[in-house]
């Protein structure tokens, strides 16, 4: 049942370019897809470990900058007269480095910020993202600052027998993003259903109890942060090679908020949640564009976030799943248990 839904969803998404010819909508779908990958990675932290990271865009932006700089090459000065010079590498290497370096940043940020919880964790993560943004803005020699990095090459895939395939069109990028999104979904799904996933949820439900049964808090949370950051870095790399120009505005707090809204609306702690929430909020601006000024759209965004938190505090997918599960439970009795409610969410 669950696998069937997943396969049908992927087939529907894969068939979209066959009947959708509008380049504007295709563009919206590609950027939405990239942000959905980011939202999925955020959900791993927010939904499965319960840590609200509001600096998530930092990893996305680090991925974008690392990938762009790797494929463009740079020559930047360091303190004490050292210089680092780097010749352009193929963009695929940029994608790989983006994943590795974003993951490393996730490791160090996780190590430092998981020392505090709740509001303090949120504020540390915001601060981290802002410091990275200010570095990107001020280290002009490396990042061009507000002048932006331009002419970022498109991703090139070497196919045996065919030669190099440059992914330049919207169609090619659409399938690339879809492939990465499916891969990220499968990775997160496997992770959540593993021993490690149970440890994460145990920590979220009751940290002291989880510790008492031998779960290593720091290790579990840091590993979640590393994987989450690495996936966000991959999304950032895709973004850089698709848009082909990035500036420090990529680190804007509003981008983190967009991802958070996607996760909360769809349902945190539900695998399909970020996809559903992402589709709604990624395509909402497209629908609102003809009828509303951009400022009014943001007012609507803020309003919708508040209304959803009041009306559907658990998000769309878990609420629907619960209703569905309740209907089924009339036919056959469900054994009640501590995790039964959460299991219902998980099957969504």
């Amino acid at each position, binding site marked *: 049942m669950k696998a069937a839904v997943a396969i049908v969803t992927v087939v529907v998404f894969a068939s979209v370019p066959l009947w959708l010819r509008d380049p504007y909508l295709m563009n919206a779908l590609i950027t939405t897809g990239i942000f959905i990958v980011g939202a999925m990675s955020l959900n791993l932290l927010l939904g499965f470990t319960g840590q609200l990271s509001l600096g998530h865009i930092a990893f996305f932006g680090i991925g974008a900058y690392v990938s762009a700089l790797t494929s463009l090459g740079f020559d930047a000065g360091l303190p004490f007269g050292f210089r680092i010079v780097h010749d352009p590498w193929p963009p695929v290497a940029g994608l790989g480095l983006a994943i590795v370096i974003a993951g490393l940043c996730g490791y160090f940020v996780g190590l430092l910020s998981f*020392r505090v*919880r709740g*509001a*303090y964790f949120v*504020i540390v993560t915001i601060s*981290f993202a802002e*410091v990275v943004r200010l570095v990107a803005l001020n280290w002009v020699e490396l990042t061009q600052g507000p002048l932006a990095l331009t002419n970022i090459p498109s991703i090139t895939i070497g196919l045996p027998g065919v030669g190099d395939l440059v992914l330049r069109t919207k169609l090619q990028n659409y399938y690339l993003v879809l492939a990465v999104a499916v891969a990220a979904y499968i990775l997160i799904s496997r992770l959540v259903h593993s021993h490690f996933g149970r440890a994460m949820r145990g920590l979220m439900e009751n940290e002291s109890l989880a510790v008492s049964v031998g779960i290593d808090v720091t290790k579990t949370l840091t590993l979640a942060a590393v994987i989450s950051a690495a996936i966000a870095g991959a999304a950032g790399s895709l973004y850089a090679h698709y848009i082909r120009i990035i500036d420090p505005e990529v680190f804007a707090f509003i981008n983190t908020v967009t991802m958070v809204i996607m996760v909360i609306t769809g349902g945190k702690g539900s695998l399909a949640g970020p996809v559903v929430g992402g589709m709604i909020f990624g395509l909402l601006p497209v629908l609102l564009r003809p009828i509303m000024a951009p*400022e009014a759209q943001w007012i609507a965004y803020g309003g919708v976030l*508040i209304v959803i938190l009041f009306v559907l505090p658990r998000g769309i997918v878990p609420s629907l799943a619960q209703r569905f599960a309740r209907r089924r439970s009339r036919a056959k009795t469900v054994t009640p248990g501590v995790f039964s409610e959460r299991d219902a969410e998980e099957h969504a």
Partner: protein
Amino acid sequence: MSEFLQHLINMLVLGGTYALLGIGLTLIFGIMNVVNFTHGVLYTFGAYIMFIVVHQLGFNFFLALPLAVVAGWLLGAAIELVLLRPLRGSDIDTTMLVMIGAWIAMQSGILWIWGGVAKAIATPFPDAPLVLGPVSVSWLRLFVLGAAALLIVATYLLINRTKLGCAMRATFQDQDTASLMGVNVDLIYTSTFAIGSSLAAAAGALLGPVYVVFPQMGDLAAVKAFAIVILGGLGNITGAVIGGFILALAEELGAGYVSSGYRDAMGFLIIIAVLIFKPTGLFARAERVG
């Protein structure tokens, strides 16, 4: 040496308004356990009230300041009644996200109504600065420092010498016991949020004429306020005042001797450093981790 003295003078002026911002946030954070993301918007709102009263209504500059404080008080009370009261008892993440939603909606509303162009507020002070030996300071900045000091003292007296302040402190220590002693906790929450908001609006109204007024001016102010609260310790008013001056000093020295581009990074670096090395804040006794 004269350069250093000049930095110290600037630090005093900035620190006064930072302290106002910090006190407002630390009260709300400490008493209500709400991470108030609308604090920056209230700062922006105060500055815009100043602009409207002086330029669009044509009133006196000195009348505009109390009006901005009152307007901030009313908006804060409205936010508490409409958004926070129904959410009492829900987890801190939910209230935080609701406050983020309110912040986005209000900031975009300001952008929609008044546009994104930065506006300057005319002041009745002479352009020529007051020169004291090697350093100089403008009359406007002196007025800002004086007004901020007045408001800080007024808030301190309100918290420590009045019945309302006593009830607020009791609620901060133990909400249930305070409630049993006849403290109307709902009223305390609304007053706390309104007072905190009016202090943010006052800070915006004071710094608006010093710089320029634009819709996103509150974002950095909010982060600085968070830095001050973390530096001074949760709910600690004296700590917030000292934290405000420390942040201003760090910014002035950072801008003067490191790079002006990283002036605004100082607040964030302080937050990160304090939470890593001394997570209870510099002056707090309360337990915070876990």
